[in-house]
């Protein structure tokens, strides 16, 4: 027959392949998001649909003292978790890289230990750290504190400020693996000639770290900070098991607040307004990340 040169296949067929995922995303993301935005502007409850369009939920939300303290808690939790995770992740990455380049033993077991904590479900991480921070005399960290200061009565989870710090420690334990892996991959592909040239120039290890390695890895640091920030803003499961948001509202972050406002206070309007705020945070961070990825390939 006259099948000479096969025509490039229609891209229309390929677009058809996008359809199943697009439909699923439409029903699981787009419709619910539209719904929650609508609720945030009405006086709905989980039981009955409201119709009145108003900004009441937003005004009530933003003018309440409770919510301001929730935002403060969330910001403290996010900023300290992110800084500690990225810093510790970088230290571990440097450690692994140093060991690998010199053929030292022990790097694989350290890497595995860090990664294992990442694979553990958040709820289990919360349960585990609740045991670690047990304030009974037989508790591990309590015993350690007694050993250092014999008469001390440490309160790791029963005072709001300490509970927030404890939550950050647990979150760092759980999340550091991600930063470690990203930065470790960056160090592994670090241009070797750059390192050697600076060594010949007589730069010492610290100069090489701060004047060469960190500046070269800066884009990776930014990606790492962005992704970890989004993940930390969305933290829910670990805190649910570790503190349940307490004591009082000491560790109630935004995601927990949304859940509690809707499911225990039945205030759908205000809970939805808070959810829209979390949504906007997610979208803004995604936008920065997206632009950054684009710039990297251009």
């Amino acid at each position: 027959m006259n099948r000479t040169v096969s025509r490039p296949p229609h891209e229309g067929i390929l677009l058809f392949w996008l359809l199943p995922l697009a439909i699923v995303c439409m029903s699981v993301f787009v419709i619910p998001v539209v719904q929650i935005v609508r609720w945030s502007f009405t006086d709905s409850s989980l039981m009955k649909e409201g119709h009145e369009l108003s900004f009441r939920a937003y005004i009530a939300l933003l003018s309440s003292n409770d919510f301001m303290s929730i935002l403060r808690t969330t910001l403290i939790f996010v900023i300290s978790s992110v800084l500690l995770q990225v810093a510790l992740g970088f230290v571990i990455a440097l450690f692994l890289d140093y060991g690998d380049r010199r053929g030292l033993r022990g790097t694989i077991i350290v890497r595995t230990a860090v990664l294992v904590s990442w694979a553990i479900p958040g709820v289990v991480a919360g349960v585990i750290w609740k045991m670690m921070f047990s304030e009974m005399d037989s508790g591990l960290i309590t015993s350690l504190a007694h050993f250092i200061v014999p008469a001390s009565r440490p309160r790791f989870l029963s005072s709001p400020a300490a509970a927030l710090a404890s939550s950050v420690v647990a979150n760092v334990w759980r999340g550091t693996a991600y930063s470690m892996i990203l930065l470790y991959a960056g160090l592994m592909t670090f241009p070797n000639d750059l390192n050697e040239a600076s060594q010949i120039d007589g730069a010492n290890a610290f100069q090489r770290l701060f004047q060469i390695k960190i500046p070269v890895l800066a884009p990776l640091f930014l990606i790492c900070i962005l992704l970890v920030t989004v993940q930390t803003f969305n933290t829910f499961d670990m805190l649910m098991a570790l503190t349940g948001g307490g004591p009082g509202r000491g560790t109630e972050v935004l995601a927990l607040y949304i859940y509690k406002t809707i499911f225990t206070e039945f205030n759908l309007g205000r809970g939805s307004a808070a959810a829209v705020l979390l949504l906007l945070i997610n979208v803004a961070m995604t936008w920065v990340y997206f632009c950054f990825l684009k710039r990297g390939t251009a």
Partner: protein
Amino acid sequence: MNKPKPVALAGFYLIGIAIFAFFIVPLFWTLSMSLKTIPELFSSKLTLWPKVPQFSNYAKIFQNTMILVNIKNSTVITISAVLITLVLSIPSAFALSRSRFHGKQFYMFLILIFQMLSPVVVVIPLYRFFISINIYNKLWSLIIVYAATFSPFAVWYLKGYFDTVPAAIDEAARIDGAGRLRALVFIHMPIAIPGIVSVAILLIVQCWSQFVLPFILLDDKRLFPIPVGLLNLQSTSDAITIHYLAAASIIGILPIMICFIIFQKFIVSGLASGATKE
């Protein structure tokens, strides 16, 4: 590289031990708690490791809680959700890698937003919606939500992978007369196997950990996966049964740990490349 000096070597191992301890001690402590007797739990001094490990604590957990049912549910949810996610995202990723169309950038951006979105935001409308059309508290509808939640990550990751497969291979397939679907299944997918395996492992870990979705979309104890079952157990147990909770935690993470240690190589490469590729 020249050999490090003894001082540097000592510093290296000191740091290594400190890092290792921070990450392993909580797990060691949980294991130790799970094997203790009640007097050891309440003694006024520290018991690092129980004198006689009480393996009967584990037998009690198997008898008195629904942990085995939880593990079964987690396994069913994880395997089906990962398979559906792959079926949804492989064709999409391939299509996004090979075609240009108006609005593609926007579509990619939208998918990225879905990936970053907190499940708490979407699960509340879904809860109401599921109740209204009578698919609330069902495993199959939950599994679809899982697949939707994890597909965006898989699509971005796999698109990056397909992008590295040279166009010459498409060309060769076309000359051989293979259609798009045959080319994907018999030519591109075999090449992309390492990427698909990495994605599958990362998805398994995330599915096993997922908490918010089942917590809100399920009501029946007999359907709970591990994280929801454990939280339930935690809220019904008190100080006197803390060793059982520890044992249940160990049982609950055992399957994922085994999977993790076998496939660690893929997790390391997967996590690293997933975040930086466009």
